[in-house]
């Protein structure tokens, strides 16, 4: 692993088979107020919950293996890459920064997240982007049912298929899907894909490092703005 230290900064390697999770998280939190390594590699995560949660510093954390619930929750500024699968609520309530999952993400990925970018290279399960509030999400595979439920703003890009009830009760978030959509939720409708939308998808795919999916293949979905609790006079508030 020391071979990772190819740049001026060295990589701090932490083995969770040896180091307690709380100690690792505390050391990552301490970087917000004190100098320390800017590149970290975490070994043997073995599905632990709340790994690299609440970071608030420009730091890169690579995790070798599968993680449990709420990995990189509340993330600010940090880049967290999971070289494996992620459990429920990866990047939940992320504010900024970037979270990348090489494998699959379980339900509620990027739930309520306000900003930053979540990239899932496998599939994301049910409720991906539920109540999202500004995050951008790019899923290389498919998403499960009730994705973008009550999504307020931000963008969900799905290169594969979407499960049932996509965008149920959606506010002003944008959804782009390249594959099949099993069904749309209440007040979610398909909308015209114009040039500026294609450019938007192209930019997000590029940021996600996905260069073999044609942005013109996507369909766009969003709010019909007819739900009983939606009032168009308030559209600017979102």
């Amino acid at each position, binding site marked *: 692993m020391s071979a990772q230290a190819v740049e001026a900064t060295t990589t701090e390697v932490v083995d969770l088979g040896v180091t307690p999770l709380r100690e690792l998280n505390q050391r990552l939190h301490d970087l917000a107020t004190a100098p320390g390594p800017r590149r970290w590699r975490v070994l043997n995560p073995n599905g632990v919950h709340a790994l690299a949660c609440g970071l608030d510093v420009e730091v890169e954390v690579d995790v070798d293996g599968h993680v*449990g619930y709420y990995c990189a929750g509340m993330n600010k500024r940090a880049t967290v890459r999971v070289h494996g699968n992620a459990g429920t609520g990866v990047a939940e309530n992320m504010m900024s920064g970037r979270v990348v999952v090489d494998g699959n993400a379980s339900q509620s990925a990027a739930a309520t997240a306000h900003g930053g970018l979540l990239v899932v290279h496998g599939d994301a399960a049910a409720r991906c982007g539920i109540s999202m509030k500004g995050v951008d999400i790019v899923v290389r595979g498919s998403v499960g*049912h009730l994705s973008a439920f009550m999504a307020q703003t931000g963008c969900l890009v799905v290169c594969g298929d979407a499960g049932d009830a996509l965008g149920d009760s959606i506010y002003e978030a944008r959804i782009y899907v390249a594959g099949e959509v099993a069904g749309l939720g209440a007040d979610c409708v398909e909308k015209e894909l114009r040039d500026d939308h294609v450019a938007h998808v192209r930019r997000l795919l590029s940021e996600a490092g996905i260069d073999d999916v044609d942005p013109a293949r996507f369909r766009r979905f969003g709010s019909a703005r007819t739900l009983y609790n939606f009032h168009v006079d308030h559209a600017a508030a979102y």
Partner: protein
Amino acid sequence: MCGIVGLFAKSTDVEEQLGEHLGAMLVQLGDRGPDSAGVAVYRDPAPPGATKLVLFSADPREHWEALVDELARVFGDAGELFVRASHAVVTLDAEAGEIEAWLARVRPDVCVMSAGRVIEIYKETGRPEQFAARFELGDIRGTHALGHTRMATESRVTTDGSHPFAAGLDLCLVHNGSLSNHNRLRQALRREGMAFRTENDTEVAAAYLAWRLREGASLRAALEGCLDDLDGFYTFLVGTADGFAVLRDPIACKPAVLAETDDWVAMASEWRAIAVLPGAADARAWEPQPGVVYSWESAKV
């Protein structure tokens, strides 16, 4: 909460260490269910025509030898008595129904935890690490097994209310979730002649499966019937003589992870329970789709 684990051996190495692996998996999910723990292990088939039963007595001084002598005198003994903590394994040369009817009449205080040719169910209140040590899971070999750690929501914390629940011969169920129509369904199943020992929701789901199978449904059809007839949240893991099956409710509120290598198939509520298995890091892992029945069976049958 509640935690579920299942392990299906595809190699003799894993069969040899089945109980040890299962115990390690259970302990990982202690935080999901600290109230009670239980396992169903499939192993050591009874001779043809004979029935293997696991009996439970709440009396720590239960004189198992005397009870088994009496049972052997009535039914003919077909295997040695084996006592494991508060449970005893008894193999008799008779059909399960006859033995259970006799026990209900003569020793109603003794519970039949499981009956069949291969199944053995053990369950108790307490944390899974205590359970694994007390029941010496590390010594248990078998072809496949499932387990449960309970955080009670619907009914009392008792041995009877722990999982797995037997759902017929060699059949059992563990459950993460809660059912909301179990009282009404219990009434309906009582009218169909099904018996209940607890107020537990999972016991109703087990009885529902047993009833559907009794009426001629396949296991897959019985499980798919749950999607229509059960209201509530569930991830089910069902053990059969030959393997196990997984079903999540259509909303998929409760978690489930499946993983497979050349040596085993595993199911758990969370990855951390699978991570303790040999070769887990390189396993193919995925999340089962809601409302879809997944099943594994041994090639022998």
